[in-house]
């Protein structure tokens, strides 16, 4: 019952009017980020980091703000899936399958309402899972030595491509590039200048925040310029809410199944929210069997993936908070915030920064309630904002990114750097080198090197210490599987996901 006490303390942090205000603001902005095309959750959270900084927010408030944005983005993704058949973010892909047909039958309002409720229960189940699992995992992680940590970091990179990842070698290359960038600057343990080439601005290393914002925000702008998707969409009419109470009750089993499956998928390394919603949808389809009319507007086909991706979103926070190894792009960006707040992520955070951890968890619970309140009555506002054309939106977002980066250091040098990262990000995305491992490399690189150094000092320079303990060896094996499995299982799973999409062609 120790956990309950911590949770109550967490509520005391999260329920202060100041933090509550930021949670509400975060939830609103998050939903917006989720529903607007061209503003992914990782991108949106990244842009907000420098702003949280310059506002001088205390650490727990910054984290509450960003976590609310993160949760909100998962809610928001469904809006354009349902109304436009365009997923607002990747995990919302499965929601298109039944959400759009429902909208075409004139039940858009119902689909939006029920998916908000499903998101809520998914988020709630996921957060409860997080509350139960995280302290246990954190306690277990306390037994990790430097060698285990080093293996864990390798595992994080190896599984990052996900089971559905395309070319694992490109993940490896991306991770190596990210870690390489993180080695620029003065070496902490010896004071050697590495790759600074005498440039004063490089002595402290490359600020990962500007790298993240550049890679995501600027490259996104360039992608939109290239694809000329600037003109936006027509305004959509939502119609009246006709959802009956009976119908709502009938979807409860789907909500529970979806939430639990999503949470599990979220916790597992390399799975993430996209897989969470996919698994929830397919298993729901199987569970209901022939009675359902999936693909042509079955309400359970909206409920299951939405509960799934919100459950997964909370689940993905488990490895990030307890081990300091995020499993997705957005949680990696959240980790960036933690590191820049000078908080060492990992098991010790649960004892040393208990107020922050539990404040964030409590904020997640409160955030879900706020999001439900925002998303049912205020849905009209978001729908209206959905019709903002990207040709106005993206330049403004880019400008906000500039403002954020500029206000951290008041130097234009950082801005050039950010643009350079943006151009690099564009080319890398064109060449199908994933960006998330680069970011994770930037974040985890210094920790990896530190743990490697500690392990080698403890063993007096004997490299076999890295895999001598059974736990470390186990982690290496899983990491190896993480790289090998996508090659074997990946094409199969991808084909299935694709056939699930084409099996139910959405008639226009």
């Amino acid at each position: 019952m120790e956990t309950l006490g911590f949770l109550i303390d967490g509520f005391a942090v999260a329920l202060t009017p100041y933090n509550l205000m930021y949670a509400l603001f975060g939830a609103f902005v998050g939903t917006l980020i989720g529903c607007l095309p061209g503003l992914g959750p990782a991108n949106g959270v990244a842009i907000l980091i420098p702003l949280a900084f310059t506002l001088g927010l205390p650490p727990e408030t910054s984290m509450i703000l960003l976590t609310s944005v993160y949760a909100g983005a998962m809610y928001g993704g469904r809006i354009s899936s349902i109304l436009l058949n365009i997923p607002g973010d990747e995990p919302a892909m499965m929601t298109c399958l039944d959400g759009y047909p429902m909208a075409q039958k004139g039940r858009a309002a119902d689909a939006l309402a029920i998916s908000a409720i499903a998101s809520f229960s998914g988020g709630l189940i996921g957060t409860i899972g997080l509350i139960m699992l995280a302290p246990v995992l954190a306690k277990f992680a306390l037994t990790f030595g430097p060698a285990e940590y080093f293996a864990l970091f390798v595992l994080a990179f190896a599984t990052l491509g996900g089971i559905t990842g395309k070319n694992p070698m490109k993940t490896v290359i991306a991770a190596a590039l990210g870690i390489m960038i993180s080695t620029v600057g003065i070496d902490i343990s010896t004071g050697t200048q590495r790759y600074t080439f005498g440039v004063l601005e490089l002595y402290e290393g490359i600020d990962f925040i500007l790298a993240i914002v550049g890679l995501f925000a600027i490259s996104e702008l360039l992608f939109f310029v290239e694809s000329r998707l600037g003109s936006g969409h027509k305004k959509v009419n939502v119609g009246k809410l006709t959802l009956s109470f009976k119908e709502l009750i009938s979807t409860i089993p789907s909500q529970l199944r979806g939430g639990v499956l999503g949470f599990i998928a979220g916790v597992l390394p390399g799975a993430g929210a996209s897989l969470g919603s996919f698994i929830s949808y397919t298993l729901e389809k199987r569970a209901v069997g022939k009675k359902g009319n999936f693909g042509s507007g079955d309400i359970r086909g909206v409920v299951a993936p939405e509960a799934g991706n919100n459950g997964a979103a909370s689940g993905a926070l488990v490895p990030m908070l307890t081990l300091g190894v995020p499993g997705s792009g957005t949680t990696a960006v959240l980790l960036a915030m933690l590191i820049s707040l000078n908080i060492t992520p990992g098991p010790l955070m649960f004892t040393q920064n208990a107020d922050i951890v539990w404040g964030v968890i409590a904020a997640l619970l409160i955030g879900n309630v706020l999001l439900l309140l925002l998303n049912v009555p205020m849905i009209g506002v978001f729908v209206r904002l959905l019709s903002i054309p990207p040709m106005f939106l993206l330049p403004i977002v880019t400008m906000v990114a500039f403002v954020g980066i500029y206000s951290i250091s008041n130097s234009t040098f950082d801005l050039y750097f950010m643009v350079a990262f943006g151009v690099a990000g564009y080319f890398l995305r064109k060449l199908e080198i994933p960006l998330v491992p680069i970011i994770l490399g930037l974040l985890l690189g210094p920790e990896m090197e530190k743990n490697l150094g500690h392990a080698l000092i403890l063993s007096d320079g004997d490299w076999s210490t890295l895999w001598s303990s059974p736990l470390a060896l186990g982690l290496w094996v899983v990491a190896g599987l993480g790289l090998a499995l996508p090659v074997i299982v990946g094409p199969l799973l991808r084909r299935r996901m694709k056939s699930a999409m084409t099996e139910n062609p959405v008639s226009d």
Partner: protein
Amino acid sequence: MSGLNDRVLGLGLLVLAVAYGWVAQQWPEPFGGSHGMGPETFPTILSVILIIGSLYLMVKPDQDTPWPWGKTALELLFSVIVLVIYALLLEPLGFVISTTLTVGALSWRMGAAPRSAFLTGLISAVVVYGLFNYGLSLSLPAGLLEFN
């Protein structure tokens, strides 16, 4: 030849990896000797990993993704130049003027009518400037609009 993208990328990465690894070998041994690990150990490992990765790319490249040529490439170049000029002029011209021009130019090139593009730029610039300077008391450069 198919897979040219990845082969060129692989070659570039190979050069980078070798250079990165070579630079690491030039650092002097830190004072007091290294206990198992010096400043060059970790970069050397990374360099080896990247060399292997880049060789793999050259041997087994993925299918090519098409590159934008012609007009689209120019538009992209234009956007990047606008962003660089924005960074360049932010301090001398001040936030409001440079932002109006940048957001306006970008919106215009993305397909908005010039009038509404630059109007969007002006409005967003004034709103953000007001929010930062008066609401949050963080100063953005006023530039030409500064009155002393």
